[in-house]
């Protein structure tokens, strides 16, 4: 078991930089999720940790050992692939035991480990089957089993659930979470699904364009996004982002207003000047319909989910605002709606897009 440290990691394909200097520390036993849109470099980063991609520049340590030049098999990592990558000509038993066989583990010990993995993943009855005879979920279990038996220091998951249907994905998600709790191993998990990231992670690493945008716990990212990218990426439905201006500034307070927003006064934050243009971020779930009007608009979409009602409203300034209101709210298309929020909960971003 071991933690990892990445220092100034770069990856280039010719002149194209894919990973542009990643610094990251992962503690032993942590569940870390790399999340970001397609092409952000999250899978590349994972594959560099696995040893499947060369590291162009920087230092990667697993435990206390620099492993830049170490072969994948000697890194003490196991990986679960998006496509499962099961060996089609081998039975489940042989698939799971392949690594042990290569490591020349004696047969009785190998048997015991394979049975143990099969028990943990409830697939004892599948051991004689070939991958072609398994369903998607069963294949995923086998792929995880293959990782477990080797007792690696670090588990790597590359979008392992994206080929599964929605309900199975939910089941497997909770199983992976339980597995982490029972094994206590370091796990690194790549996904583009921010809900997976939020539910599984001890620590989320948000990547965009090969650069780490923010590292933190799921709630930290949710409540205190470091920049506009993270604010927009984490949370579903997306955070509402509205342009505002600083209309008044005193020693302790500042007042923000815009065409769409009734003036609000907040404690003054650092680095803000009179007349600055800022972006105000407020989550759809932070908006309330309690009669107080901070923003107002015309309803152009209503989605009723039973436990909540998602309303899209167009403000006079032309921006669209999403509100997730609790329960079944009596409202119809084209109704006027006034929404309130707690000014203490909002996020503010400066012109560079960074949180202030």
């Amino acid at each position: 078991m071991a933690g990892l440290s990445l220092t100034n990691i770069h990856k280039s394909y010719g002149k194209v930089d894919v990973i542009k200097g990643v610094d990251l520390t992962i503690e032993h036993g942590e569940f870390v999720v790399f999340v970001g849109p397609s092409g952000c470099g999250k899978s590349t980063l994972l594959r560099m940790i696995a040893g499947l991609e060369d590291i162009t520049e920087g230092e990667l340590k697993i435990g206390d050992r620099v492993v830049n030049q170490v072969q994948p098999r000697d890194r003490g990592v196991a990986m679960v692939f998006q496509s499962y990558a099961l060996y089609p000509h081998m039975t489940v038993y042989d698939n799971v035991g392949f690594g042990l066989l290569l490591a020349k583990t004696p047969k009785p010990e190998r048997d015991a480990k394979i049975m143990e993995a099969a028990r943990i993943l409830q697939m004892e009855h599948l051991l004689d089957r070939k991958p072609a005879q398994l369903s998607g979920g069963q294949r995923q279990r086998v792929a995880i089993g293959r990782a477990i038996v080797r007792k690696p220091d670090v588990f790597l998951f590359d979008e392992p659930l994206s080929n599964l249907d929605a309900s199975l994905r939910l089941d497997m998600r909770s199983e992976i979470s339980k597995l982490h709790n029972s094994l206590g191993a370091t796990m690194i998990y790549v996904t583009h699904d921010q809900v997976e990231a939020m539910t599984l992670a001890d620590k989320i690493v948000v990547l965009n364009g090969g650069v780490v945008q923010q590292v933190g716990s799921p709630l930290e990212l949710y409540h205190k996004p470091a920049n506009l990218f993270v604010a927009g990426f984490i949370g579903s439905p997306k955070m509402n982002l509205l342009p505002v201006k600083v209309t008044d500034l005193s020693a302790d307070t500042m007042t923000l207003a815009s065409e769409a927003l009734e003036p609000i006064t907040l404690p003054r934050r650092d680095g803000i000047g009179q007349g600055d243009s800022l972006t105000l971020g407020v989550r759809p779930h932070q908006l309330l319909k309690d009669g107080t009007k901070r923003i107002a608009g015309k309803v152009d979409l209503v989605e009723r989910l039973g436990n909540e009602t998602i309303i899209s409203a167009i403000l006079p300034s032309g921006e669209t605002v999403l509100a997730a209101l609790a329960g079944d709210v009596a409202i119809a298309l084209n109704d006027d709606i006034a929404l309130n929020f707690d000014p203490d909960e909002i996020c503010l971003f400066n012109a560079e897009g960074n949180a202030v």
Partner: protein
Amino acid sequence: MSAVISPNTGVNTALRYLLLVVFALIFVFPILFMVVSSFKPAQQLLRDTASIAAFLPVGDLSFDNYAAAFRRAPVALFIFNSVVITVVTVAGALFICSMAAFSFAFLEFKGKEVVLAVLIATLIVPFETIAIPMLMLVNNLPWIGAGGLQFGWLNTYHVQIVPFLADALTIFLFVQYFRDLPRELIEAARLDGATWFQVYTRVIVPISGPVFATAAILKFLAMYNQYLWPLLVTQSEQYRPVMVGLQYFFQLNIAWGEVMAYLSIITLPVLIFYLVLQRAFISSIASTGIKG
């Protein structure tokens, strides 16, 4: 089965089968003619070619032509030579070419694309153009055999084997197949602790049955049908293969019955080899294990 069958379906199927039968007959007729003729005396054989009887086992049938063929030429020796040369070359070529293709498909090294391009370019060079330079080359090459170090490879088995152990077509076939295999399988195996050679032997080879069968059939045919090269490099009949042996039957008076008997005999190994591999070919079409 669907209960509703369009009236056209039956007619279409019949037409399709008819077409297939016609094509099959076109391909089968020469073989049929050869086998049937091998049992006929020379006069009858020539007389029958004017009618449909050429394809029918009628008249005075016997094994006389076969007996005569064995008297005229060391048929068993030729077949033995051909089988040794072909089997060793096919086995060696499958191993060497698939390993080379594995490197081209999965390993990263400088100049890979250039080397592969040059290799494939050699496909368009006819063998006849390089036969003479190759002959001069093998005439001077050293070989360590039972008699110690010797120079010159002529009149041996290995002169008919070694130059054909690697060829561009076979490598190219394997490269194309390997490139379509899911890379994750190789990566999974490497993470499981496999060396590159173990990735090759335990993961790639077992799932590449179809391409091995295809390459084996093509290589077998190419080797078994060799004529020019063995003619150039063997002077004594001790190492001559079946195709060169055909010369024994084209003397002043051509005994067509014996020719047909000889041809029937030497066709047999090819048919057996093909039938064996065809079964392997069909049974080895494996699922890739990757969800699409």
